[in-house]
Every structure is written in C-alpha cells, then in structure tokens.
C-alpha cells in the first residue's frame, strides 16, 4: 500500500543533520523522491521551528463547556423534531382541505359569498343559499383548524 522509498527517512535525517554517508548520497542522487525530500527538508524544519503563535490557545475547560452546551441545544432540536413534523403535516392537511373544499364546492361557495352582502342580509334572504349542511360543517371545521394552527404557530414563536 505504502510505496515510500525505504531510504527516505534516512535521507531526510541526513539532509537535516548534514551528515551523509557515501551510499546514502549516491542513493539520493539516483532516487528522485529522496532527492526532492532532501531538497526541502531543511527549509521545512527551519520554517516549522519559527513559533509565530501570538494568541493564547483557548482554554480547554471553556471549549468543553461550550461543546456540552451545543450538544444540549442539539438534543433539544432532536427532541423537537417530531413536533415540527406534526406541525408541517397539519399545515399540509389544512392547505389540502381548503383546496379540496374550494374545488368541490366552488360554484356553491361563490353563490353563498355573493349572498353575504348587506342588502340581502337586510332583506333576510342572505341565508337562502345552495351550500349544503355538510359543506358548511367542513367549512367551519377547516376554519377552526386554521385558526388553531395559526395560534399555535404564533405562541410557539413567542
């Protein structure tokens, strides 16, 4: 798996210390990998030895505490996931209910809405509509559910 030249560590060591044996020098001259490693090894060592850390590293106790707090938040989010899913399902069901009702009783609803004008109410003919009792019940139920979900959403936000 690892096809590093077996002499590479020795070549790097020699390049860093400057103490080359003849055989190692000959190998480095004939092995492109080792030659490249020897070329940059002293520079990399010198570069790494320049300690330029000017900031004190964060305290591990603070990191530990923050991580635990974040884990706690994540746990709360995980626990709230089923509630969020139910909420989304409720929105979808209500939206589908309204769409179905409007499609199913659109003409009757239009007549019923037209009848709800002040003139007709005054003459007492507003109730004479084509909307069936079932549709009326469905309408009331859907409206109630919509109001309940809206209230829940508002309270949850607060």
């Amino acid at each position, binding site marked *: 798996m690892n096809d590093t030249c077996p002499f590479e560590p020795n070549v790097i060591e020699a*390049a860093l210390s400057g103490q080359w044996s003849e055989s190692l020098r000959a190998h480095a001259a004939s092995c492109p990998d080792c030659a*490249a490693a020897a070329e940059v090894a002293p520079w990399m060592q010198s*570069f*790494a030895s320049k300690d*330029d*850390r000017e900031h004190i590293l964060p305290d591990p106790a603070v990191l530990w505490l*923050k991580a635990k707090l974040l884990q706690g938040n994540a746990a709360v989010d995980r626990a709230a996931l089923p509630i969020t899913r139910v909420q989304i399902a409720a929105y979808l069901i209500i939206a589908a209910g309204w769409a179905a009702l409007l499609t199913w009783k659109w003409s009757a609803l239009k007549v019923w809405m037209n009848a709800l004008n002040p003139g007709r109410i005054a003459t007492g003919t507003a109730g004479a509509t084509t909307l069936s009792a079932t549709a009326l019940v469905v309408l009331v139920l859907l409206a109630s559910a919509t109001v309940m979900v809206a209230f829940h959403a508002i309270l949850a936000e607060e």
Partner: protein
Amino acid sequence: MTADVMFAPASFALAHADTDRRSPKAPMDEAHFEAFYRKTAGGVWSYIYRLTGDPTLADDLLQKTFFRFLRSNPAVANDDHMRRYVYKTATNLVFDHFRESKRERGRPIDLPPSELRADRGELRHDMMRVFSELKPQERALLWLAHVEGSSHEEIAQSLGVKAKSVKVMLFRARKRLGDMLSKKGLAP
C-alpha cells in the same frame, strides 16, 4: 462497536473499529479531553495557521475542530487515532473555508501589512510568503509529511485522497517548493 462510537462520523468510527472489538471504551471525560487538547492543540493551531496565514482564523478553526471532535462523542482510545481525526477535521475546515471564500487556488495568503511585521521577524515573514505561494493542498502535504511526520496513509486520510496518490502529490509539492527555493536563492 460501542454506543459512543455509533454516533461518531464514519471515519472516526472506522478508525476505532479494530480497538473497539478488543475492549469497550469509556466516553471521553473532561480530564482526558484536557490532556489530549494540551498535547495536540498547539500543533493543530500551527498547521491551520501555516495553511491559512491568518492567526485569528486559525483560532476560530481550531475551536471548530475541537467542537467537532467533542460532538463525535470520542471514546478514550488510541491518541494516534484521535490525533488523525483532529487533523482530518482541521484540514476539511480549512479547505471548506478556502472553497467558501473562493480563494483556494493560487492566491497567496493574506499576510500582515509591513508595519505590523517589524516585531515578527522578516525571515519568518519571508518563509511564510514562500509557503503561501504553494496551493493549499501542497502546503498541507508538506506540513504533514515534514513537520508532523505523517505516513502516506495518514496524509491520505487527512486530505481525503487515495494513499497511492500521496506519493506523486508529495513529490510534486516538494519539487514545486524546491524550485521556488532555488529561484529565490534559498535552496540548501
């Protein structure tokens, strides 16, 4: 596999798979974390800093690295495994940062202005400038190979590349740095 490791990222869980079969590991407590952090954090910070050239960003990414490490519910296991996981996470975060800021290829590191350099040492600054001219992946390869002493397999894990590719990639990175040093008259 222990329950702790079940929630860990796949790479971390896999890294522990062999040791987990032997004995169940206890979850890491604060004392163990502190000991591990004190041993590794300095090296990880230097690695991130040499890759990004930005000390504030290095602080930020170091914290994120260890948050991710703790979020993976590490078990008290072989330090080498945990170290590898931390370096892999740090590398991913650095590369993600480069991707997000769209300056991953070829753009030199943002170095501090000259008036801030006086007390930091010209030589160090010049070395940083040379290193910054390499691609981020080349910087990571050279640092892991020459400073951390990582094997090709460990480098492959940290960079998310095939172990077989590391030899060629490392050779190219060394050649590129060698050429740059020769051009600038810094070669040994």
